[in-house]
């Protein structure tokens, strides 16, 4: 649980029954999404979509900040454990036995 994918909101509208809907672009695929649970989003925002509903806006600043931390981790681990590369097998251990 649970398959949810981030997509870029490209359109907002209201359907015939007054429900706030939109269209989100997932790497070139455009799909309709229900926006009732994310009243704060605007076109251009990224939203997380599960079973056709936007559940959250992607916090792009937060994403950039935490990603940068991951990238900066590089120097530390390389210094302390230069043999780390050797531990990555291509075939899973014990395979075929």
């Amino acid at each position, binding site marked *: 649980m649970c398959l949810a994918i981030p997509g870029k909101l490209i359109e907002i509208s209201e359907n015939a029954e007054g429900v706030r809907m939109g269209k989100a672009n997932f790497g*070139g695929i455009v799909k309709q999404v229900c926006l009732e649970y994310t009243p704060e989003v605007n076109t251009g925002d990224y939203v997380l979509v599960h079973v056709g509903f936007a559940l959250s806006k992607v916090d792009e600043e937060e994403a950039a900040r935490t990603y940068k931390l991951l990238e900066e981790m590089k120097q530390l681990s390389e210094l302390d454990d230069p043999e780390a590369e050797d531990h990555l*097998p291509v075939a899973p251990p014990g395979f075929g036995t």
Partner: protein
Amino acid sequence: MSDKGRPEEGGNILMGSCPLPLTNYQEIVLAHGSGGKLSQQLMQKIVLPQFRNELLEPLHDGAVFSIGGARLAFSTDSYVVNPIFFPGGDIGKLAVHGTVNDLAMCGARPLHLSVGFILEEGLPMNDFWRIVQSMREAADAAGVTLVTGDTKVVDRGKADKIFINTSGIGQVREGVSIDPKRARPGDKIIVSGCIAVHGIAIMSVREGLEFETEIASDTAPLNGLVEAIFAIGKDVHVLRDPTRGGLTSALSEIAQSAGVGMLLDEASIPISEEVKGACEILGLDPLYVANEGKLVAIVPSEDAGTILSAIRSHPLGVDAAVIGEVTADHPHFVLMKTRIGGSRVVDMLSGEQLPRIC
């Protein structure tokens, strides 16, 4: 024992000792047609035992045999796709390409096709006309002639608009020997272009997915591409078009047939952004999604570069790539190095891949 729809279970089913299939379904289910394990079992347990002969044994895309000194290939394919019209083609076009490609995968030059139509009462005449026209165009483009056929009509509700079978004969090129058993350790595995296109094109209509750039089926006749490959004079061990069941089914079958292992590199497998997006949304693994105008070639490693160039020079092969190699390790199994450096086994599915929410 009650007559259940589900497989029998209990202590009397032990792998290896029971001659009946593990999956003892009392009825055909859709999964039996999906190109995965259940399809395989249906063939192996019910059909093949009745028709054992050396021409059928290889279980390749077609049968190859000699008559009066000429080496011929013979193949058949049936199409039941729904919807019958989809971006990039229709059921008629698929049916022509399907048999043309099966013959090409035997190393043969496709020559003549037959067609059998099963039409549902109520099919609009205009739709049938469009499909037949489309078949003619496809046959012309592939350089084959339709030489015989048959048409039947069934009551409304007894066929899903139209079912088409095509069969075909081709002549195998001199010096060419395509056989799944020829895959050997060290060989490189080449795919001729982006995967999962056809399956996603079909599903896009079914699921109502909208694309910025419409995803059209990649259905195409591959005999021209195959000619281009043979024209450079190198030995090709295996050719296969990965249709139902996707890349995985095709490679798994070859691995099992030849008793070899395969190692793929996930990052090398070509896939377009849109198809990737559609797979993400639906929760599908592109390795299992059907392809049409694509082929897999297994070739000696010293010739892989030259053959890859030849494929890339052809309009149908511009995105071709080496995606892995054949290995003596883990025979019968296809392994893949994942995008993040881990590893997993790529096994055949039992039936249809279903969209998921989890």
